[in-house]
């Protein structure tokens, strides 16, 4: 089963002439200062095409965030390689923007200053910085809150601000680490719809980490299901839904797909729970 999946992943990579991200036989071990080392990711290979929306789905603690952090260059790559556009990832870069579950906004800066921050570090004229900051503040629907501090915003608004801050530096790749995981159900649904709208307007390569099967199926073109720790790619499922259809999530095809993938994840979630106990 595993080798078949790997073959398929490799084949997918070969097919995709426009492959942008190539993860090759990546493993990662956490070495806590006290306690035994933990194998978080075990021999993961994955290819992501340019402008593809890929969801990384798996139970909590399966290493999907670790994989994302390595892609972002925040954690070192020890075994295996990650290449983006043929270049090895060796640290963070503005080509790969990241959005975290708990927003990671700069709390001492206003919404505008947060969005401006990355722009100020690019050699852009001041007027252009301001124009772009406003453009992305408007895009995520935060007009009127430019001078608010993050502590004055709701969770959904904070995440809108974080997304605007990341989009403003125009990364080719958007890494999202359970970005809607801390939001209430209604806000989460709204944000999912808006993310798709943004992605349709200016397609970027998106790697979206989540443990929510419905969210993965709703958003992604491809879902990579990860196993419980140590994280391996268990299956890759291609999806081809028309996401403009407002009744999509109620359609039989969609519900069946969610069930099918949930079956794959459930066993892993149970294993993950048992592993914790």
């Amino acid at each position, binding site marked *: 089963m595993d080798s078949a999946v790997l073959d398929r992943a490799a084949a997918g990579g070969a097919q995709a002439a426009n492959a942008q991200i190539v993860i090759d036989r990546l493993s990662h071990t956490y070495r806590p200062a006290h306690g035994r080392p933990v194998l978080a990711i075990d021999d993961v290979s994955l290819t992501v095409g340019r402008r593809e929306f890929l969801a990384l789905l798996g139970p909590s603690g399966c290493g999907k965030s670790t994989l994302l952090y390595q892609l972002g260059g*925040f954690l070192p790559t020890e075994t295996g390689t990650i290449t983006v556009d043929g270049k090895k990832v060796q640290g963070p870069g503005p080509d790969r923007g990241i959005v975290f579950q708990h927003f990671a906004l700069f709390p001492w800066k206003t919404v505008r200053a947060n969005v401006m921050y990355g722009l100020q570090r690019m050699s852009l004229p001041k007027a252009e910085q301001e124009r772009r900051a406003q453009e992305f503040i408007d895009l995520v629907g935060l007009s009127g809150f430019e001078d608010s501090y993050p*502590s004055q915003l709701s969770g959904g608004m904070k995440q809108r601000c974080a997304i605007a801050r990341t989009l403003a530096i125009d990364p080719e790749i958007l890494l999202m680490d359970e970005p809607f995981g801390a939001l209430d159900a209604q806000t989460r649904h709204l944000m999912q719809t808006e993310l798709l709208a943004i992605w349709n307007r200016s397609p970027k390569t998106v790697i979206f980490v989540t443990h929510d099967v419905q969210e993965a199926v709703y958003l992604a073109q491809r879902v990579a299901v990860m196993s419980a720790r140590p994280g391996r790619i268990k299956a890759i499922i291609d999806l081809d839904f028309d996401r403009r259809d407002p009744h999509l999530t109620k359609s039989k095809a969609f519900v069946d797909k969610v069930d099918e993938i949930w079956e794959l994840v459930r066993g892993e979630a149970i294993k993950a729970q048992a592993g914790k106990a």
Partner: protein
Amino acid sequence: MARINQGGAPMASPEHDSGQLPHFVRSFGWGVVAWLPVIILLVAWEVVARSGTVTPFMLPTLTRVFERMGSELVSGELPIAVGLTLWRALAGFVIAAVLGIALGLAMARNRFFYWFFDPIISVGFPIPKIAFLPILVLWLGFFDLSKITMIAFNTIFPVVTATIVGVYSVEKEIIWSARNLGTSERGMLWEILLPAAMPQIFTGLQVALPIALIVGVLTEMAMGGYGVGGSMQTASRMADSLGVFAGIFEIAVVGYVMVKLMAMLRRHLLRWHQESQEPTTV
């Protein structure tokens, strides 16, 4: 607003008539309630002092203490003494703040600095630094330099530890976000870590400020000369209990005002920080 004033009566608007007092009366009322324990204490003082159970030498009446402060104010003794004490305390505090934040940042960012200074700070924090006063006098004399050095020496410890804790508690996601958005290694310290750690650093400064005043008065008492501490010591030697109590009152008022100003500064500088906006006694 205009509608209320038309009536000419300084009463609350009709909407507030449901037994509610005007806002300023209510806030004044709460102010009295909050200060009641202090007022009770002062009244008790006055009553005991007047009762004849203690001699005026042991405990002069409040009225006489205030009279004394009034005459010292007019003669210029009080402004000079308070001014000198404040200058020394604030000079020591500012030196400790600058050096303490710098050392804390260096220790939080650099393994060598941490390795070198961590045990020194750990041992030095609980030592009564005032014990170094005799040697400081020998080294630096008994004027401002030794006093200010002693104040800075005492106040630097809470600033250093608060800065280290502040930098260490910056979320890694914030650091990663900054790196992702193009922050340089040097920019990380000034643009990210320092502002992010500011609430904790400011707490350290708020702890340090009263210590600066306390140590300032202590050094003045030990070394004599001008200043509130020196005046109190002189008054004590001359069996002038009124002068001692006047000094205690002056220090209490100065300390209270300094602490309150610091809290106001915090609310202003850290207006982005929610907990900093909540009322506090510090």
